[in-house]
């Protein structure tokens, strides 16, 4: 009651202060703010006929303040606004489409349903009451297809509106997957009778071939995830200046994704594997809601909102049988089990507002938010397997949740923002701004220890003990049992990482001439992270920009920036001792309890610990960095009907890292020229070039000694290597939209894109190579990752009568894809099982013929 009084007492003057301003257009809350599809991204009727008079009889080629020509509006029968009652107008387009060539290729159908058959391509209906401000709208596209969408809105302009949306988004990853597993799509993948569990191995002649031929006999299936999202939203003007709004989305995601379900891998080059690609079932459901109100008063604005997001996964875990047997005679897991995405929720309250200060046209803006991410899914046991490992560990003690420290995740992170911005305009020419923003994530999850409550041991049962079982190694099981003289250093305790970010900003702008503005901004960003290699990074950022707008020829915008990120104190390459059993070992040495004899051995183990990592390696999100940026956009009106746009971008990140990411640089230039040669005809040409380069260094470890520094016995210079990426992109676009004859309109477009990534490497010696690469050249490059696409699109629209027309549509694509990760991938080979999703080139087309009715 006391709290309620406080709230009422605090809010009442606020409510009283609401003045007579308006609040309008809550338009972009949540997702699905625009609905379209690949065949018709705008979702509007294609190839409209431009209104011959344009928007005005006086100036047909008007431009935006920046200098881009405004489009001509479409000529529609509905442009006669006169009428009684409800005025209804719209377009319906329906017909058939068909695809051919490599029309099942994943890249061709990635986000589109290109099935053959009848289709309603566009529905666009509008209605408004001539007597009131009531209106209704309905639009839809590709009805009946996997990329269909529809939206309906009803409202009274200026008072309220309600909107319903339905949107399906396909995402196809591969259409050529094959697998021996049964139960695909469920949480339990089993092997068929032909492939018994643990039966396939390099050491069992013919077994791999048998697996391969069995997979070959299976049908191909699609790896894809389809989103189906339904939304309800609306806003209502409670009184002048006060508006409430809500946006709710319900989404269902279904499909299959490739997933790693390995048991072992061949990092020693011993010819063993058990690398297993399995199929993750996707059956997600989410509810997302944002609701709030906004107040717009004479001197202030206020927004208050609640955001809730509730996610549930109907399949909690994925269990998969293991076809492999390492053949070492030790333990081989029969199954693997992964914990899939947990049900989780996010709740957030936000309050933000601004207030006009009485002096210097000042404006104070604040934001406050408090949020919480949490999940408490039931935990799985350490393993799903049974049996006794060669070093005596009985998995029956580990395959039960009774062994866990706790039986559910109890994970939670609290978030918060506090922000204040002040801006002043002491003169018409001078602007000043100052700001402070604090963001924090407070991880409230209690650290989880990978220790067994039944056996009082700690261990890392990774890959379901596949690796430890194959080698019969307690060390590879990461067993930590000091009472019995077993010491392995491993990461046994989860790290509750969190961070907070404080940002201080200041800036000035000055209007040099009526339309020329200079701006300067400074920002200091301080990020404090818990349990990371550095306690705090400070980044000073400087930005200078100039904008010159000219009423005659166009606009120039240029921006240059420099930033330097530094960390406070030393870079500690191993801040994780507390989370490793190393810490427990210290405790044990100090208090060996009933096993004093083991203390000396424990000390010896401690002294012999391998380094955590290469001391001089700097993680790129933390390392010291100098950054230079440059961006320019120039819009030129070459003549009354022709626009030219030039863009340039440059970003150079130079990391102060002897090892780790050294640099990454991006530069891009673009040119676009467009012309509306008449109201009935326009064309454009564009070209964009981008270059991205990056480089990194590392040292292959020898596992000898305890010195983690570069050049030491563990990381000798002889094992140093570097790699670099050099990527170039060329994008070309040409398009024409013209009236061929009074009743025929043509739209023609060609788009070309090529991106090539070269990845090269060089090592100081062959000693840097992975064991599997023995004999390989330590200097060289991978085959380029290459993605090339030609796309030609044609639309021809004809008119039969004023209201009936037709549209012919054709899209032809040639695609070339090369990626060394997948090129020539085998489904069963050398103790590796994959879904065989090799990337394929494509030559494919979609054609369609639609009838249009416009009324």
């Amino acid at each position, binding site marked *: 009651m006391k709290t309620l009084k406080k709230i009422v007492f605090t809010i009442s003057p606020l409510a009283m202060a609401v003045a007579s301003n308006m609040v309008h257009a809550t338009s972009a809350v949540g997702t699905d703010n625009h609905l379209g599809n690949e065949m018709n*991204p705008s979702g509007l009727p294609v190839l409209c006929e431009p209104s011959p008079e344009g928007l005005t009889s006086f100036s047909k080629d008007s431009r935006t303040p*920046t200098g881009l020509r405004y489009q001509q509006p479409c000529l529609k029968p509905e442009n006669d606004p006169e009428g009684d009652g409800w005025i209804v107008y719209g377009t319906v387009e329906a017909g058939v489409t068909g695809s051919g060539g490599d029309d099942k290729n994943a890249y061709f159908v990635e986000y589109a349903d290109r099935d053959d058959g009848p289709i309603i391509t566009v529905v666009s209906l*509008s209605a408004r009451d001539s007597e*009131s401000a009531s209106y209704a709208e309905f639009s839809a596209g590709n009805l009946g297809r996997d990329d269909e969408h529809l939206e309906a809105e009803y409202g009274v302009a200026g008072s309220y509106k309600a909107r319903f949306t339905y949107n399906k988004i396909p995402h196809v990853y591969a259409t050529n997957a094959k697998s021996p597993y049964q139960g695909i799509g469920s949480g339990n993948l089993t092997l068929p009778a032909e492939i018994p569990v643990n039966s396939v191995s390099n050491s069992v002649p013919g077994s791999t071939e048998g697996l391969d031929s069995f997979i070959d006999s299976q049908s191909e299936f699609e790896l894809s995830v389809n989103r189906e999202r339904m939304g309800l939203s609306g806003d209502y003007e409670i009184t002048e200046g006060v508006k409430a709004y809500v946006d709710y989305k319900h989404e269902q995601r279904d499909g299959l994704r490739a997933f790693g379900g390995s048991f072992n891998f061949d990092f020693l080059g011993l010819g063993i594997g058990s690398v297993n690609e399995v199929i993750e079932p996707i059956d997600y459901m989410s509810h997302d809601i944002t609701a709030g109100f906004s107040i717009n008063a004479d001197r202030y604005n206020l927004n208050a909102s609640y955001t809730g*997001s509730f996610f549930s996964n109907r399949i909690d875990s994925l269990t998969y049988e293991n076809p492999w047997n390492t053949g070492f005679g030790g333990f081989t897991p029969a199954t693997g089990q992964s914990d899939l995405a947990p049900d*989780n929720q996010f709740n957030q309250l936000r309050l933000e507002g601004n207030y006009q200060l009485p002096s210097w046209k000042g404006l104070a803006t604040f934001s406050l938010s408090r949020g919480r991410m949490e999940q408490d899914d039931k*935990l799985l046991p350490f393993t799903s397997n049974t049996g006794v490992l060669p070093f005596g560990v009985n998995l029956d003690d580990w395959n039960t949740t009774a062994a866990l420290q706790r039986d559910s995740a109890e994970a939670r992170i609290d978030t918060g923002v506090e922000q204040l911005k002040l801006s002043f305009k002491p003169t018409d020419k001078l602007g000043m701004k100052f700001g402070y923003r604090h963001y924090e994530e407070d991880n409230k999850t209690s650290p989880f220890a990978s220790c067994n409550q039944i056996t009082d041991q700690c261990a890392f049962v990774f890959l379901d003990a596949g690796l430890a079982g194959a080698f019969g190694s307690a060390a590879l099981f990461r067993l930590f049992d000091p009472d019995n003289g077993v010491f392995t250093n491993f990461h046994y305790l989860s790290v509750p990482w969190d961070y907070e970010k404080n940002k201080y900003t200041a800036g000035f702008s000055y209007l040099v001439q009526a339309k020329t503005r200079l701006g300067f901004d400074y920002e200091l960003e301080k990020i404090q992270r818990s349990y990371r290699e550095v306690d705090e990074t400070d980044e000073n950022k400087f930005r200078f920009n100039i904008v010159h707008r000219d009423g005659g020829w166009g606009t120039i915008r240029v921006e240059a920036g420099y930033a330097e990120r530094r960390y406070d104190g030393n870079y500690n390459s191993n801040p994780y001792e507390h989370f490793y059993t190393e810490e427990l070992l210290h405790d044990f040495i100090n208090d060996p309890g009933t096993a004093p004899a083991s203390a000396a051995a424990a000390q010896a183990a401690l002294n012999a610990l391998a380094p955590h*990592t290469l001391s001089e390696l700097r993680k790129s999100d933390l390392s010291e960095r100098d950054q230079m940026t440059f961006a320019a956009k120039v819009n030129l009106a070459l003549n009354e009907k022709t626009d030219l746009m030039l863009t340039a971008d440059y970003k150079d990140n130079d990391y102060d890292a002897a090892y780790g990411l050294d640099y990454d640089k991006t530069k891009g230039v673009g040119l676009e020229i467009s012309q509306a040669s008449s109201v009935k005809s326009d064309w454009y040409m564009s070209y964009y070039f981008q270059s991205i380069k990056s480089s990194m260094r590392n040292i292959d470890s020898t596992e000898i000694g305890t010195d983690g520094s570069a050049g030491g016995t563990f*990381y000798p210079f002889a094992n140093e290597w570097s790699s670099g990426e050099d990527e170039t992109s060329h994008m070309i676009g040409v398009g024409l939209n013209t009236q061929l004859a009074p009743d025929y309109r043509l739209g023609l477009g060609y*788009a070309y894109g090529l991106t090539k990534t070269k990845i090269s490497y060089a090592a100081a010696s062959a000693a840097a190579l992975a064991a599997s690469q023995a004999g390989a050249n330590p200097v060289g490059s991978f085959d380029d990752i290459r993605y090339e696409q030609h796309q030609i699109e044609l639309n021809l629209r004809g008119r039969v009568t004023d209201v009936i027309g037709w549209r012919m549509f054709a899209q032809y694509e040639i695609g070339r894809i090369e990626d060394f990760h997948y090129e020539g991938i085998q489904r069963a080979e050398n103790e590796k099982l994959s879904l065989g999703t090799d990337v394929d080139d494509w030559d494919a087309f979609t054609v369609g013929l639609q009838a249009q009715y416009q009324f």
Partner: protein
Amino acid sequence: MLKAILRYLICLILFYGASVPLYAAEENPALKKGDWPVSFAEFVGADQCKGCHQAIKGHYAHTKHAIAFEKNPGNALERKNCEACHGPGSRHSEHPLEKNAIVNFQQDSDLPKPVINGQCLQCHDGGERLHWDNSIHDSNDLMCSDCHNPMARFSKRGLQRTSSVNDTCISCHKTQEAEFKKRSHMPVLEGKVSCVDCHNPHGSSSETLLKADTVNQVCYNCHQEKRGPFVYEHAPVRENCINCHKPHGSNHEFLLNVARPFLCQSCHSHSQHVNDLLTAEAGPGAKSDARVVGRSCQNCHSQIHGSNHPAGVRMHR
């Protein structure tokens, strides 16, 4: 009680402020303050506008502005219809060719930005535009009419000047447009995601006009399964998705910044298998290595976004 009164007074001061109104509800003060011709004009009524601007009339009639202003005006300003946005029209009516006799939102206007944008902000101040002041678009001197054209319906929503909000954005943001054409990309050019699903072009309280407090919170709007929190977290993943992913498009699968395994190896150099150099021969074939083939490191570390499995500290399960 004293505290409560104090709180009440603070609220009063905060919300009422000084007595001098800086921003009236019905007129853009910047417009009245200037010495351009429109400042001295009088309202003449929409009928007079429509008398000359016949071509516009039909298109404008179907916009939400027209419907609201003509059929459901919320206040005196909205009743002025055309002149609510363009300012009083008497001077323009008398001297149609005189510059600045009316508020013109196009390139050839000489009126300063605060005047032109101020016309829109008479009604559209606050709400989603609360952070407009000094936002990146504001500081680059963009005007409302750079993106919007309220004189006709070119787009389904938002009175865009092009056929969709995506087209409006990419008409300037050519780098992003090119990235949307790369091998893995957000389906923006396919019409399935819009720029405003992630960004608020009118300003926001966070960086790069994001609609949420952080990059990750924006990503979680569609990728809720990655939100966790997990028992075992991956620090750079928790802090910022773009430590590993490009937000718009990439030549690598899953919008990755660089190819695996090098993406992982740029931060990890622990002992044993992590820091080995893998060569071109590690792809599918005789010397194939699971750290390169297919999903690379994620063949084993499949839960790279975080694991809820008790044996998930290395993101395997």
